[in-house]
């Protein structure tokens, strides 16, 4: 295992480092737009900087000059705009840092961006010397399957698509005709939110279970609701369709963090248990969690769910 290679001197990130970084970023931003003019609000957003920090960067840039060539930077505030002028002051965009490059390579790989797009983005942006076949140094645990580009294109075009999807319990993928609305990502999985055309209802599909996507080209009227509206719709749908199940959690057991938990309270008998009331859209999902808890999680009601659980458990052994 190679050990760290000592350098002759230490390096720290100082206030000067941050000032240089902000000034370079402001020059890059101004150089990117026609007329080299941006609003102060845009500068604050892009640089994630305060107004005072932007003014400080402007003051630094305003001193830049080259006596030999006569070039000098002219930068000033014009009301709420920041204007860059002066010969030789524009700056081409810099390549990404090694950390940013590793993160970009991770996204391009995990979302399966097309090879030609990855190649162009890599050549344009990644640090010099980056090998396309380099092993990943940055990764995530959420799977985006193999169809992200096709799904993203369909969402952007509001195109109806046919997907081959294998739900839990299905032995093979079945075709669904859907109008895609949005992609959703939780801590564990990525989903396509879409309107099932035949069932006339909104559904979520885990991306790694989508086996094929066919863009039918027909434009749909479906538009993605905002995140908050979507969460409200999902919660309402759960309340309307998913039965409420009461669970008992043994003292000291890890408390679940599921979305469908509606109530949590100490057990009335004072045994130290915690009672949970949970909306359960799919019983096998609940049963697997109860089994995995090995007795630390118990279904209290309804009785029919307890019976279904015992039947399910018996099928496993």
């Amino acid at each position, binding site marked *: 295992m190679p050990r760290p290679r000592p350098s002759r001197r230490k390096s720290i990130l100082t206030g000067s480092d941050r000032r240089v970084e902000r000034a370079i970023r402001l020059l890059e931003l101004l150089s990117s737009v026609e007329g080299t003019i941006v609003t102060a609000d845009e500068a604050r957003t892009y640089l994630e900087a305060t107004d005072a920090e932007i003014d400080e960067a402007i003051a630094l840039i305003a001193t830049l*000059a080259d006596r030999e060539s006569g070039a000098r930077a002219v930068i000033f505030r014009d009301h709420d705009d920041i204007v860059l002028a002066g010969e030789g002051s524009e700056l081409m965009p810099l390549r990404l840092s090694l950390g940013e490059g590793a993160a970009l390579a991770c996204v391009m790989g995990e979302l399966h961006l097309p090879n030609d797009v990855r190649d162009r983005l890599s050549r344009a942006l990644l640090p010099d010397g980056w090998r396309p076949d380099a092993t990943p140094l940055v990764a995530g645990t959420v799977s985006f399957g193999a169809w992200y580009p096709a799904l993203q294109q369909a969402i952007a075009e509001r195109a109806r698509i046919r997907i081959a999807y294998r739900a839990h319990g299905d032995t093979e993928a079945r075709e669904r005709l859907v109008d895609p609305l949005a992609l959703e990502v939780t801590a564990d999985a990525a989903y396509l939110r879409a309107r099932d055309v035949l069932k006339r209802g909104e559904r979520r599909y885990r991306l790694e279970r989508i086996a094929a996507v066919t863009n039918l080209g027909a434009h749909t009227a479906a538009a993605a609701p905002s995140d908050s509206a979507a969460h409200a719709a999902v919660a309402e749908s759960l309340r309307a369709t998913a039965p409420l199940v009461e669970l008992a959690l043994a003292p000291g057991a890890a408390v679940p963090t599921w979305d469908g938990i509606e109530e949590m309270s100490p057990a009335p008998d004072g045994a130290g248990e915690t009672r949970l009331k949970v909306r359960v859209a799919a019983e096998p999902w609940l049963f697997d969690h109860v089994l995995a808890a090995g007795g630390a999680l118990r279904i209290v009601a309804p009785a029919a769910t307890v019976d279904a659980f015992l039947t399910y458990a018996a099928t496993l052994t």
Partner: protein
Amino acid sequence: MTERRRQPDDGTADAPLDETAQRLLNLLFIFNAAERPLTTDEIVSDADLGYGSPNRASDLRKFRRDREKLAERGVFIAEVRATDAAETEQSSWAIDRARTFAGGGIVREGDVHLLVKAIDAYLAGPAHPLAPPLNAVRIRAREELARLAGELPPEDPQRVASPTASQQNRARQNGTADALWTAFSLRRTVPLTYRNARGASSQRTVAVYGIFAHGATGYVVGLDSATQAVRTFRIDRIERVGVLGDSYEVPADFDVRPYLFLPFDLGEGEPVAATFSLPAERTRAELAALTYGRGTSERAGDGSWRWHITVRDLNAAAAFALEHARDGMRPVAPAALVDTWRDTISKAVSAHA
């Protein structure tokens, strides 16, 4: 020449200009504007630039340090020497443009739109550990769109307004995460104070080899000075980071993916080779999502999958298989794992008696 007094790090608008920052930026400016390489003498004798002291050796050292500082910001000033130049000729310097500047005219507008959407999708979940670098890449991508279209593209209103955006903002402001990404980018070791799962605090210095997101939690993987081994550290258990230290190189064959841990990796027990089965209809993509690409998988004679993986905690491995029982996951070997799995089911059933 502007006033040269040290400025406090809080950076107030009316404070005197930071002479170091000014010198570094001026160096970048003159090299960016120069139409020919500049000699060492032209640089170190230029008082306007912030050199030109009576001590030439000191100015030469200052110029070298400034080149290193600019390199840390992604600006590479390289020595230029003609192939037939005599050894006695003094050095000339120019920006290494290929290494410094992004390649112009390569990407297409559609590429950049796809990249921005991809980053938005990747960061769409809870506050994401990869948000600091990916937000920086996203900004670069939007600037590239501005270059292609002439103006900054309008921001997606949902991204601006959504709680997710504010969560990401909080993540961006996380000083520890930013420091770790900086150390990783600069390939500099970072001293840190780490509190482990048992609450014990320790000081160590880490050469960060990789970073990964496990759900909404971030981890760094690196060579740990305390154990001289490659270890994984949970970012939210790092209580303090210190001044960046020595430079290092990430081993060429290092791959962060084997460090994406599963629940049964975390036990104190001896590693045991285990095998699980999954139904034939599961696709490779589903398998990859379940296993994080860990271990090895193969088709058995009947077409079903066999997944081979080392486990340290049999109870956790049995629970993992049960959490995926509806997907058809079953333990196959060793017998102790199968027995533990059956025992876990029995306990769950008995609790309902």
